[in-house]
């Protein structure tokens, strides 16, 4: 499985803080994972995640380029940060 987390306004828009997505060989971040989320949560959820403002983290590091996922990985999607 892939653990997928959503934060802040994305968490609210998707109505959940965390889902589990089945891992399969060749699953890639971001497009492959978002397609898998679309099948599981619906196209509306996937459209929210595909927004160019959305930031994607892979195993707690920001991920800007297509990346192969391994079983057990943690992925997070979140809006632009506003701390400090």
């Amino acid at each position, binding site marked *: 499985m892939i653990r997928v987390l959503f934060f802040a306004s994305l968490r609210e828009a998707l109505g959940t803080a965390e889902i589990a997505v089945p891992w399969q060989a060749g699953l890639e971040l971001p497009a492959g994972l978002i397609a898998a989320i679309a099948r599981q949560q619906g196209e509306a959820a996937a459209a929210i995640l595909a927004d160019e403002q959305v930031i994607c983290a892979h195993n707690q590091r920001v991920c800007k380029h297509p990346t192969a996922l391994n079983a057990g990985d943690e992925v997070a999607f979140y809006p*632009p940060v*506003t701390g400090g």
Partner: protein
Amino acid sequence: MISVAVQEADFDAGAELRALQADNPALGAVASFVGLMRDRNEGVAVTAMALEHYPGMTEASIRDIAEQACERWPLGGVRVVHRVGLIRPGEQIVLVAVSAAHRKEAFAGCEFIMDYLKTRAPFWKKETTAQGEERWVQARDTDQAAAARW
């Protein structure tokens, strides 16, 4: 020496400065920044703020930013404290304190860490207006520009 704390409790800025100063008598400069919650944002009165974060990644990303600062400048120590949870106007949100032999490096390291923290560390603010409306604080272009100059 890098210290990072993410906590709900308020912090003692003076104690953080003392902890840095005790480090090393070769260090002549401590620059620091404390961010406070303002009672207005974008022209609207606000009464409270909830600070959400990504536990685990938050601490790691702040530490990573502090390490980048230590690679760029000869710093003695870095201490960062960032609060999460419910915060009220006038309360402290964040502290960044940096020591170095001389003030130029201490100031540069402190500003760099604040600029990066603002645009990289996974925190999100949701504020409650005086009218009782809750709204997510929007990221600022000026913060992106501040981080891009380094």
